């Protein structure tokens, strides 16, 4: 995808079945999750995921701006995904482009599906996602960061939202694509899972997959999300445990 007339295609899969960075097909990149990284925000989190660096902040529940968006029976959830101009190889024009607006919309809708918004009528819960360094999978990293930030802000939710992209690389279904695999791979399928219900609240896809491949990709993505879910819970415990695990508090 996106490789029309582009440079040479790198070898994405070795004869031993290893990927460009030595990972197996069902292996995630290294993920580091930190909760409560910003002073001013009501909730925040920083995610380093492979070569992605994504910060998320949550403000609210607070007064709604602009006022006319206010809902009498629930909180409005406003999500802004933004990418820094320096986050990609070729400088990105700063500000709102259509890609970020679409991503903001689908991530916002994913959170609206799990947040108990009716607990906070006439308020706004504002989610800000800033991609500081991008290397494929930024919407999933942003979702994970925002989900942790919401938990950090104490917003009641059905569950955390782990997210990951599955793709097709050199004809094989692979978990968690990095940049080269995304640029030269054959398909990309980001998703976010509600672990409690086993349902997907974010799902997009671009590329080429048969019905059978898509079915396997969904199953692999769910498996990946469950792995990330464990990491997310651990990160929250680290933030809020007051002593060594098992110690007195």
């Amino acid at each position: 995808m996106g490789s029309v007339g582009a440079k040479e295609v790198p070898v994405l899969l070795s004869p031993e079945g290893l990927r460009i960075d030595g990972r197996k097909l069902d292996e995630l990149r290294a993920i580091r999750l930190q909760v409560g990284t910003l002073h001013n925000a009501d909730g925040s989190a920083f995610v380093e995921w492979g070569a992605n660096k994504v910060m998320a902040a949550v403000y609210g529940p607070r007064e709604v701006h602009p006022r006319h968006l206010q809902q009498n029976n629930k909180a409005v959830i406003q999500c802004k995904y933004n990418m820094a101009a320096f986050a990609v190889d070729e400088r990105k024009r700063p500000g709102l482009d259509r890609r970020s607006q679409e991503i903001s919309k689908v991530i916002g809708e994913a959170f609206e599906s799990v947040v108990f918004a009716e607990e906070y009528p006439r308020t706004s819960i504002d989610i800000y996602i800033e991609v500081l360094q991008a290397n494929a999978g930024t919407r999933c990293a942003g979702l994970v960061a925002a989900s942790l930030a919401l938990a950090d802000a104490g917003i009641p939710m059905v569950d955390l939202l782990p997210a990951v992209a599955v793709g097709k690389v050199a004809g094989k279904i692979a978990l968690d694509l990095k940049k080269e695999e995304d640029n030269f791979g054959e398909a990309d399928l980001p998703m976010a899972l509600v672990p409690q219900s086993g349902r997907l609240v974010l799902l997009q896809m671009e590329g080429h997959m048969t019905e059978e491949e898509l079915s396997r990709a969904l199953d692999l993505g769910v498996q990946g999300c469950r792995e990330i879910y464990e990491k997310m819970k651990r990160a929250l415990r680290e933030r809020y445990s007051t002593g060594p695990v098992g110690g007195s508090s």
Partner: protein
Amino acid sequence: MSDEVSAEILTTHILDLAAEGKRLDGRGPDEYRPITVEPGFVATADGSALVRIGDTAVLSGVKLEPGKPFADTPNAGVLTTNAELIPLSSPTFEPGPPQPGAIEVSRVVDRAIRAAETIDLTRLCVTPGEKSWVCYVDIHVLDHSGNLIDAASLAAVSALAHATVPAKRFEVAEADYPLEVNHFPIECTFVRLGDTIVVDPTFDEERAAQGRITVATDEAGQVVAMQKGLVGAFSPDDVKDVVRRAFRHGERHRALARGGSA
């Protein structure tokens, strides 16, 4: 306020009906409203199509003009898709910069057209790095009665399928020639109403929906794009089911995109 109340009542009614496998307009869960495709609706465009799905009407016009290829793809032409939800089409649309809803429609349509390689962009290149065709696909929603994505993508693909490259007008070649269309991606949209997943939602069904999902398939048996939208969730098995259904509807709509119908 009374609008809100009546919408609320209608939503409850739609969900009650869905629980019995029924729909407000009498359709089955896997049934589209009548679809018509009218290619060549706009003579000033290089390609165009007016698509109606029930009361939803969407017009797409294609314009080609010479321009410069992007620096990172010197051997390819440029394709841009833009959707406008103009105030004429619904009391809920206001003039101004494109709203997230309109952006999502154009992005999802664009994604299917691009991923399916509907047009071989390298064939739009005239002189590498210097001159290439820029193909604008503009989508105007005329009447919004639900399922804009399917109507918009059918209109766009149909307009491309009937487009002419105006090579003579721009003195690029001796004569105009038909735009080469290699693949026909077809988007198929479903919404969840309770435990039922119905195809081709109306405006009121979209408002009642607990999640929307679009699947784009091509004629070679490939899924080329998907988009989940609105608040709501789908299980992996739900997704597998709608993919199967999308392939079946795709076959029929593809014939309309190629040929047009009345």
